[in-house]
C-alpha cells in the first residue's frame, strides 16, 4: 500500500441505549439523553446494582426474516444488525463478487453470555457446548457472505480499539479489500450484574439512574453496565474516494500495552497506560497540542478515573489545561467489550458535527482529576480535526485510538 494511502471509515452500524443508528445516536449524545434506567428484563430486587443502560429490541435488518432474527440470541442479533447496517451505510449492501471483506469483532465474554441466555430459555449449551460450535463472528461472516478472513479478539473493555487496529492492519497487509471491524457486548445479564455488583464495581445509586454514572465527579461510586455494539466499514482512502463513499474519519493511530500488575486493579503508577497513549500519538504523527478532543475511558470508579487523570496529565503535559476531555459513558453506560467501539462513534460525531460531547453528571470534579479540561454537562462547539479515545480493561489492558478528520 502506498504510504499516503490511509485507512478510513466509510460506514457505521450501531445499537446502543441512545440510538440504533448513527444519526439518532449523534442527536441524543449531543442532547445529553441518558440511556440508563432500572433493569426490567429480569428480577433485580436482590442485586446490589439495579440499573443499566439497555438497548431494548434490536432492529431486524432489512431483508431478514423477522421471526428467524428474533429466534437468535441477542448477542447474535446485535452483531448481525451492526454489521449489516454498517455495510448498508457504506453503500455496500450490493457488492461485486470476489470482494474480500474481512470481519474483526471484539467480543469479551461471548460464550458465557450465550450460555447464560441459552440456559435462561431452557437450553443446555453450557453443559454441552458442542451443540453450537460456531461463534458469533463465524455466524455473521456466513450470513453476510463475506469473503475475507475473520477474527474474534478480546482485550477486555479495550476490545473495540483492538478490532479497529486489526482491521486497519489487514488493509495495510493487503489481506482484505474492505474490513468490518467493531465490537458487541450484551453484558447486562443476571450473572454479570451480580458479579460486577459484588465486585463493588457498579454504582448503587439505584434511585437516580440518570445521575448514577458520574465520571471524574467527587461523588462517583462506580460504573453502570451497558449493552450494545458498533461496527465500522474500513477501507483504503484511495478506494473510498474512487467510489465516492462518505468518509467519516481516518483511523490514524493505535497503541496497546499491558500493566502486568493485577487482573482487576489498574497499576497505580500507570507507566504502561502512558506508553499506550504515546504509541498511538506517535503512530498518528500527532503532538498533544494537535488533539481537539479526548474521549476518556473514565468509567466512574474511584480508582480508575484518578489513574486515567494521571495518564492524561503525563502525556498531555502543558496541553492538559487546553485539550477538551469527556467521558460519554455517563450517557451510554459502560458497554464492556464494546465500550471502545461505541466511543469511537462519539469521536466520529465530534469530527463530523465540530462539537465536543460532554461528561454529564460532572457537578463537582474530584480534586485528583481537576487538572483536566473537562467538557462539563453541555456540548461545546469547536473545530475538531483530531480525536483520541482511551480504553482500558481488566487484566491491565491499555489502548488508545486516534481518529482524524478525513481530508
Amino acid at each position: 500500500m502506498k504510504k499516503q494511502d490511509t485507512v478510513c471509515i466509510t460506514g457505521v452500524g450501531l445499537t446502543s441505549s441512545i440510538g440504533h443508528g448513527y444519526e439518532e445516536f449523534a442527536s441524543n449524545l449531543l442532547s445529553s439523553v441518558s440511556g440508563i434506567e432500572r433493569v426490567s428484563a429480569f428480577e433485580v430486587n436482590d442485586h446490589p446494582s439495579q440499573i443499566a443502560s439497555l438497548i431494548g429490541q434490536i432492529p431486524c435488518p432489512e431483508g431478514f426474516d423477522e421471526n428467524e432474527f428474533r429466534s437468535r440470541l441477542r448477542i447474535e442479533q446485535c452483531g448481525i444488525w451492526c454489521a449489516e447496517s454498517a455495510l448498508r451505510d457504506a453503500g455496500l449492501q450490493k457488492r461485486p463478487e470476489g470482494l474480500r471483506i474481512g470481519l474483526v469483532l471484539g467480543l469479551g465474554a461471548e460464550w458465557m453470555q450465550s450460555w447464560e441466555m441459552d440456559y435462561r430459555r431452557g437450553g443446555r449449551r453450557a453443559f454441552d457446548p458442542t451443540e453450537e460450535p460456531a461463534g458469533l463472528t463465524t455466524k455473521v461472516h456466513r450470513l453476510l457472505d463475506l469473503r475475507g478472513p475473520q477474527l474474534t479478539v478480546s482485550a477486555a473493555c479495550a476490545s473495540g480499539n483492538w478490532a479497529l487496529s486489526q482491521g486497519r492492519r489487514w488493509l495495510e497487509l493487503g489481506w482484505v479489500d474492505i474490513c468490518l471491524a467493531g465490537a458487541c457486548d450484551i453484558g447486562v445479564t443476571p450473572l454479570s450484574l451480580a458479579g460486577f455488583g459484588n465486585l463493588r464495581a457498579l454504582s448503587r445509586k439505584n434511585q437516580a439512574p440518570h445521575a448514577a454514572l458520574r465520571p471524574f465527579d467527587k461523588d462517583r461510586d462506580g460504573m453502570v453496565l451497558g449493552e450494545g455494539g458498533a461496527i465500522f466499514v474500513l477501507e483504503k482512502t484511495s478506494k473510498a474516494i474512487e467510489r465516492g463513499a462518505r468518509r467519516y474519519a481516518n483511523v490514524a493511530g493505535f497503541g496497546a500495552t499491558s500493566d502486568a500488575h493485577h487482573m482487576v486493579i489498574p497499576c497505580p503508577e500507570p507507566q504502561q497506560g502512558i506508553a499506550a497513549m504515546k504509541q498511538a500519538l506517535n503512530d498518528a504523527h500527532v503532538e498533544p497540542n494537535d488533539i481537539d478532543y479526548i474521549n476518556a475511558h473514565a468509567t466512574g470508579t474511584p480508582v480508575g478515573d484518578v489513574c486515567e487523570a494521571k495518564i492524561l496529565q503525563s502525556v498531555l503535559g502543558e496541553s492538559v489545561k487546553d485539550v477538551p476531555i469527556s467521558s460519554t459513558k455517563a450517557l451510554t453506560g459502560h458497554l464492556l467489550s464494546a465500550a471502545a467501539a461505541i466511543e469511537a462513534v462519539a469521536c466520529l460525531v465530534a469530527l463530523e458535527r465540530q462539537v465536543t460531547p460532554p461528561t454529564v453528571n460532572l457537578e463537582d470534579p474530584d480534586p485528583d482529576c481537576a487538572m483536566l479540561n473537562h467538557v462539563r454537562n453541555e456540548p461545546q462547539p469547536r473545530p475538531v480535526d483530531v480525536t483520541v479515545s482511551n480504553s482500558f480493561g481488566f487484566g491491565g489492558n491499555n489502548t488508545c485510538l486516534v481518529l482524524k478528520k478525513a481530508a
Partner: protein
Amino acid sequence: MPTMNTPNRETATEHDSLECAVTSYATTRLSYDAVNALRKQSDTLPGALGNSVLRHSDEQTLTALVAVKDAISQFETPPEDFQNWGVVFSTRYLGRTAFAQALNKFAVDGPWNVSVQVVPNRSLHSPASMLGLALGCHGPCVGVGGGLDGEPDAWLTAISLLGQQSLPGIWLVFSGWEPDERIDIEGTPLTDTSCTTLALALQPASTSNPTARLRIVYDQFAPVALEVPAKTTAMTLFENFIASGNEQPLTAMLGGGLRAEMNWSNAMTSTIPLLRPIPTNLKKAA
C-alpha cells in the same frame, strides 16, 4: 449511491506473505485432576503468582503456564526477559466449568453469592493477561477465538502483530479440552478428557537461530470459509509436525484465502525434543 468495482489483486501480491521465526515451543496435556492440582503449586510455575491467584484461574490458563515454563527452558538463546513481549492466546470454551457452577449457584442462592472472580478470570482476555502477569509482559496481551472455530484467529493475530509493533517476541498459545465433552452442573467432565496447550515463542524473522519459520501466505485458491468445527486442533497439527521430522510442513487454513505454513529452519539438523512425549497413537498416525 457509491459503487464498488471488482478489485484487482495488486495489493495482495505486494504483501503475499508475512514471516516470523519460531524460537521455542512446548506442549502440555494434563488430566482434570492434574490440572486442578496446579492451583496449590504456584511456586513451580512462572511468576510465582501465589496459590490464592491460581485458585481462581481457568484450567486452560494453568495448563498454559506449564507449557510456557517448558518452552522457556528450551530456548537455544533465551531472551533476557519478556518485558516487551506480547501474548496472543487462543482458548476453546474458556470458563465453562466455573460458569456451570455459577449458573447452578445463582439458581440456588441468588445474586449475592455470585463469585467476583468469574469475569476477571474466565473471560476471553483472561489467560493472556494472566500469562502476561506471570512473565511481566508489557506488550499487548490479547485473547482470540473462543470456540471450536477460533484457532485461525491466533495465527493471524500473532504474526501480524509481531510485524506491526516492533515487538521482540510474542507468545502464541493454543489451549483447550480434548475432547470437548459434556460436563455436569458442578463443572466436572462426564468422560475422560485432557486439558492441552501448545505454546510457541515467535520472534521477528531476522532472529538468529530459529527453530522453525512460520509464514502466512495469501493464496487465492485457499478456502474462504472456515471449517466449523475444525477437525484438527493446532496442538494436533503441531505434534504431527514434530513427529514427521523434516518431512512435512505444518499447514493451517485460516479462511479468507490465507494459510499458515510452518517449516523447520534450514539450519536445523534436529528438532528440540518435547519435554512431554507425544502419545504413541499420534506418532503412529504421523
